[in-house]
């Protein structure tokens, strides 16, 4: 505590800056801001100019004295308090700036514009990628909810054991509410179906185009005229005969006589040789 008490600076500082009635500090215009504060010239640079706003060395001193912890400053003169109308040679107001001080933003400036440009385009493109996949999954979700479910698809197929149908026999099965004719044809019937002059037919179709294997004829049992069910193994051409209006179909299901315009339809089917099954649908 005693050290602190001893190191009190005995300087009478000017109490305040004198000011105009508006509150603006009144600064004398003859202060030399360019001059440096007193310092050791280190033997070069020549004699340094003394700052006029610093108390001269003869008026004050700062010494490192023995017996005290630290510097002791002593002022030999008593500065008079500022009275109205007196000049004030020490002041703390800032120098007037010619232009407002603008902060230095050069560290924020980018070194190359091409990196930023590529990054901006990349971000925009990534946004596009994410939106496009979102839109795609939304549309896919709606479409898949509209598609037939697995149980409906399973009911839409019909399997027929091929071993249960002997050669030269018809089988009528129900598939999606419609009759389907399956005939296991004999070699003579295949030969007969192939011997027909295709160009002379009303709906020209070869027998190969209507069967996947010549022994197996699979077709929809709906007359193409008005939708009756033809009768098998009858008619003038050894195939099917529609009793409603007298359409005659041959052994390949092709229209040969009567009002029907086209051949009997062939449904989508596969022949599974390994399992010995015909899968319609």
């Amino acid at each position, binding site marked *: 505590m005693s050290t602190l008490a001893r190191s009190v600076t005995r300087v009478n500082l000017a109490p305040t800056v004198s000011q105009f009635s508006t509150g603006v500090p009144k600064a004398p215009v003859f202060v030399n801001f360019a001059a440096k504060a007193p310092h050791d010239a280190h033997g070069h640079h020549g004699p340094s100019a003394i700052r006029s706003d610093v108390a001269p060395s003869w008026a004050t001193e700062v010494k490192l004295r023995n017996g005290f912890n630290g510097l002791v400053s002593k002022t030999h003169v008593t500065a008079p308090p500022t009275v109205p109308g007196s000049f004030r040679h020490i002041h703390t107001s800032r120098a007037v700036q010619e232009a407002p001080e603008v902060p230095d933003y050069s560290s924020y400036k980018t070194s190359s514009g091409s990196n930023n*440009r590529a990054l901006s385009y990349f971000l925009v493109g990534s946004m596009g990628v994410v939106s496009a*996949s979102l839109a795609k999954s939304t549309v896919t979700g709606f479409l898949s909810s509209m598609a037939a479910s697995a149980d409906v698809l399973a009911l839409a197929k019909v399997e027929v054991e091929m071993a249960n149908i002997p050669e030269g026999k018809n089988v009528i099965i129900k598939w999606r509410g419609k009759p389907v004719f399956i005939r296991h044809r004999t070699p003579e019937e295949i030969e007969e179906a192939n011997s027909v002059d295709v160009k002379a037919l009303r709906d020209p179709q070869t027998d190969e185009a209507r069967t996947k294997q010549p022994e197996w004829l699979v077709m929809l049992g709906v007359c193409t005229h008005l939708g009756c069910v033809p009768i098998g193994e009858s008619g003038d051409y050894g195939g099917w005969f529609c009793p409603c209006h007298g359409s005659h179909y041959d052994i390949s299901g092709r229209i040969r006589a009567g009002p029907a315009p086209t051949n009997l339809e062939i449904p989508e089917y596969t022949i599974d040789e390994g399992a010995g099954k015909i899968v319609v649908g």
Partner: protein
Amino acid sequence: MSLANNFYNLIFKRNSVYVPVVFASAFAFGIGFDLGTTAFWDSWNKGKQWKDIRHNYVQQEE
């Protein structure tokens, strides 16, 4: 620096390239996302799905 310029000149410079690249990346992203989530699902439910325990039952039948 030059990499960014290459990307810009290759992809971003023309919309006729940029937009198809975006759609193609969306397609690839969708496939990758599906594969990733499916792999995660399978690893999370390891040993619970039919394909994991199928051999326990099918061998006995045959």
